[in-house]
């Protein structure tokens, strides 16, 4: 067991461990990416159009209530979401027949529930920041409603990318919900965050640090790719 006081040494060990290409470590890394990217993909597919509609439909009835609900969703406690998904998927639960509890699918579901409100809320806020006169001017140029929405999303791309980055950050750093519904089973549902928790409890600080560094590197890489993608400037496709 390491001693928690030797952080510098632990970091050095972490680098060595990473460089060794440990198979178990790579498996945890792959699973983390699989769960987080799947959740992010679903959250983006659902959240971007929903946020776009809410951001563009400025005359929507009960807009304040919808906004309050979304902002509440952005602050959902992960453990509560984990508990909800656990009860949903447990044998006696309404979706118990799916047999998803303690599987990667259950972890994806929990992370998606946490990520969707972030994508919706931040996309909506980004679009609300775009000049409201842009839509009518695009329509006057012959744009269809879909083209108006797509072009407005591109104009608000910084905020939209921030929404996706925030959702990815929430998904990949989440621990409470995935621990509850995934169970942190070695070789099956263990991901970086649950592994860090486990190794810290075991006193394996070098390994915990290595996993932490990997988590940071992954988050940085995806955010970097997202930002580069956002810098590309392309015109809307025709319908």
């Amino acid at each position: 067991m390491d001693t928690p006081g030797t952080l510098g040494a632990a970091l050095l060990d972490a680098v060595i461990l990473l460089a060794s290409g440990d198979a178990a470590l790579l498996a945890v890394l792959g699973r983390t990416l699989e769960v987080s990217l799947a959740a992010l993909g679903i959250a983006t597919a659902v959240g971007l159009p929903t946020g776009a509609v809410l951001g563009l439909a400025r005359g929507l009835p009960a807009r304040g209530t919808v906004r309050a609900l979304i902002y509440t969703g952005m602050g959902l406690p992960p453990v509560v979401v984990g508990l909800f998904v656990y009860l949903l998927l447990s044998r006696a639960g309404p979706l118990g027949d799916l047999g998803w509890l303690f599987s990667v699918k259950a972890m994806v579901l929990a992370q998606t529930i946490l990520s969707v409100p972030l994508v919706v809320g931040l996309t909506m806020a980004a679009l609300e920041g775009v000049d409201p006169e842009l839509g009518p001017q695009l329509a006057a140029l012959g744009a269809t409603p879909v083209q108006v929405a797509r072009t407005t999303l591109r104009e608000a791309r910084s905020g939209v990318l921030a929404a996706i980055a925030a959702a990815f950050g929430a998904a990949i750093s989440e621990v409470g919900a995935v621990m509850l519904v995934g169970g942190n089973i070695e070789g099956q549902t263990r991901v970086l965050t649950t592994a860090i928790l486990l190794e810290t409890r075991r006193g394996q600080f070098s390994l915990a640090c290595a996993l932490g560094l990997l988590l940071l590197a992954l988050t940085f890489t995806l955010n970097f790719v997202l930002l580069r993608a956002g810098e590309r400037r392309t015109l809307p496709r025709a319908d």
Partner: protein
Amino acid sequence: MPTEIEFALEDVRRVYAGRTVLDIPALEIRRGELLALVGPSGSGKSTLLRLLNGLEKPDTGRIGFRQQPDLGALPLATRRQITTVFQHPRLLDRSVEENVALGLRIRGVGRATARPRVRELLDELGLAAHARAPAPRLSAGERQRVALARSLAFDPAVLLLDEPTANLDPHNVSLLEERIRRERARRPLTVVLVTHNVFQARRLADRCALLLGGKLVEVGETQRFFETPLDARVTAFVRGEMVW
């Protein structure tokens, strides 16, 4: 040969928050003419343009376009023959040439196909040197020229101009007016120009109309409108004596 009618308005009324901002019993806009709408701020000129472009619908009455009885039910391809140049154009946060290509790209024209037309318009409007520059960094006059170029790029049948030269210097006013004249000389183009500038209306228009409080006071051939108006309010307006 009878004059073809581009727009036919019948009993058109637009109401905002219980207040009638536009009330036009009848108005015909002829194909290929340049009709100038003059009048003080809040007289309903811009509202009328938004109705003609289908951006808003009248609360009562109807607007016919060519043989179609209802402008609001036009197929997309027909609706795309009408466009507006706004007083404050919102350009995209992209290059000048991408902004000019926008209307073409919306219509499914490929980037390479659009390029020659875009370059031609940039040359004509003195914007070639700014082709790759970010559009939001341009001056007000340059931005307005980009807005005109992006509307002309796809050869619309109807060009609605909402105070396109307000707040521009004489050089830019002249450039825009000249480009509109040239476009009209090149092909049949119906233009509805909203302007505060009676001199501009007199320079460019075939016919002029005065709107006051959402109502059409008088419509007539430009020379007659300015020289022998039928309504005393037109006389006061064109002489700059109307206080509002």
